[in-house]
């Protein structure tokens, strides 16, 4: 039977993030309903009260693990050097950029740039030609289906405006 003796200590720091966020959000939520009519308070106080209680139980449990040396306040289960190696941090940066600039550059161009940049980061720069081709194909397919065919109100920019003018003038 394998022994737990050499089992690495539990990374409680990472596990505490959600309960801490939950407690902070619940307290903020309570502050917004403190002087409100009872209809706005009743279910929030019931749900928030239970949430605070289970978070308190978790904090006590985490404290016991820490005291017993079964856990540490490390956050290794959330952030590691692997996040840089696998390109996760790079993907996060490109994702934030995608959301920030899609309104300015438009769906098609921004999708192409995002796909190409993200795939290149994840592929560590390999297959650049294939990635550029597949990114362009995906972005153009998205444009053709969602904007040209379905006329959805996806964010529009230079490319969409140009194509609209081209198609309108035959």
């Amino acid at each position, binding site marked *: 039977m394998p022994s737990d003796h050499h089992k690495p200590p539990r990374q409680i720091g*990472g*596990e505490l*993030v*959600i*309960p801490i*966020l*939950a407690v902070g*959000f*619940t307290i*903020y*939520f309570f502050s*917004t*309903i403190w002087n*409100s*009519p*009872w*209809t*706005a308070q*009743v*279910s*929030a106080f019931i*749900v*928030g009260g*239970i*949430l605070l209680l*289970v*978070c308190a*139980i*978790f904090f006590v*449990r985490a404290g016991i693990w820490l005291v017993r040396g079964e856990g540490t306040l490390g956050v290794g*289960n*959330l952030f590691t050097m*692997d996040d840089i190696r*696998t*390109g*996760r941090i790079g*993907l*996060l940066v*490109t*994702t934030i950029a*995608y*959301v920030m600039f*899609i309104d300015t550059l438009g*769906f098609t161009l921004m*999708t192409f740039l*995002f*796909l190409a940049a*993200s*795939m290149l980061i*994840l*592929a560590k720069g390999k297959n650049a030609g294939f*990635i550029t081709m597949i990114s362009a194909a*995906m972005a153009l397919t*998205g444009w053709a289906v969602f904007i040209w065919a*379905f*006329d*959805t*109100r*996806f*964010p529009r920019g230079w490319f969409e405006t140009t194509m609209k003018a081209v198609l309108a003038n035959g």
Partner: protein
Amino acid sequence: MDSSTASILVEVFFETIGYWYIIVPTILLGLIVGGIPGFSAANTIIILMPLTLALDLQSGLVFMISLYCSARMGAGIPAILVNIPGTAGAAATPLDGYPMAKQGKGQQALAISFVASCIGGLLTTIIALATMPILARVGFYMHSVEMIVVMLFGISLIASIAAQDMVKGLIAGFLGLMIGSIGTDVVYATPRGTFGILELYDGVPLIPALVGLFAVSEAFVIIEKRVIVNHDGEPKTPNWGDTFDGVRIALKRWVHIVWTSIIGLVIGVIPGAGASIASFVAYQQSRSFSKTPELYGTGHPEGLIAPESANNGVTSGTLVPLLVLGIPGGATAAIMLVVMQFHGVSFGPSLFENQPKVGYGMFMAMAVSYVIMFLTILPLSRYMSHVTTIPTIYLAPMIIAFTLVGGFVPREYMFDMYLALAFGVLGYIARRTGYHVAAILIGVILGPLLEKYFLWSLKKSDGDIMVLFSSTLGNILWVAFALSIILPIVFGMRRKRKFEVPAE
């Protein structure tokens, strides 16, 4: 059913089959829009409204119904293959569908889902057709008190999901319920927990929450692996055998399909309730009364059958109040109402007297759509399952790009894309630290509904909490709810004792 009704049904059935050239492409369209979060049958019919209005009545009807059914089924495909439910109605599908895909059983899982959806949809269409006058009255009996218990049936799934680590599961579930409380209260419209952001006054929109919690967070997790299928998953060369295996597994559990689809039908009949509630309730009930509840969440076929047959049962359910009472049971049914009224169709009790072919035609269109869907989609499962073998370096960015922008579609606020990203970060933290994202999502979906019915009940009774036990049907549902919680525990203890006896 008299002979004239039977002859109308037969006539309409064959007429509807004649519209196969509309049904087949619509099914393919429905699979696409159902599979992309943010799109749905409802907003596709709106987008294609000029086309729908230009078609003649029968063609328009067949188009809308086929799109409705196939979009419902399509939502389950990405839920199984990449852990991204296309709509909130498929939010319970990945609980067991995705583990199957990771084990290299994606093709089987798709086949199971298609069979459960088609049989569930077809069966409930027949039941709805036969029991329309009775079913139509269900909506009258389901008031806010009764709806509270229905919501609790779904919310109790949090406890099941939390079984492995109860404290963490409850934190995730109740955090979801708190997030679901964001927005104005339903009685006095007092803003709560909105951080002063106007876009949150209507509450947290479901699609950005779903996109973030499932799709974005999943994309950031899967890049650790080369492909979605686990290294220890079965080696995969797609073959017809897996599809037939999936069909066999599903058909073997036909009783399961029947009763979970009936749950969907009954919930679908209630105006305002929807596929998400039905699929959570069906999953929870399926797990509660299963002989192998411990297998749920690990890739158990029954855990996949339950939500899929239930959410397809909802489709026929929503048509009942629409046709018989003129009250749409959901968003898609409401849009159908508008289109049909444009064509001069007036819904209500007189519909089956004045225009019986239209009334029965809608159910026949649904039945024919399910039959054609079964024949056309099932063979595709072999090819669809290839998604799980696409390298994640290509798949993850595609998931992020097309789902994030899908978060924008329902309300067309740029804010919703930021919100989806924020939920993505929350989902990623939750996944990495052992909190269940499905528990958070259940809270976000069902929390506001529960609060709404709870406040309505209290408002009607001047704050008397005993109103919750004031109706006969409500009390019956309370007893059923208590039994659904207690009986599985009793059965589990009995099974444990039975298992321990030979060891003694």
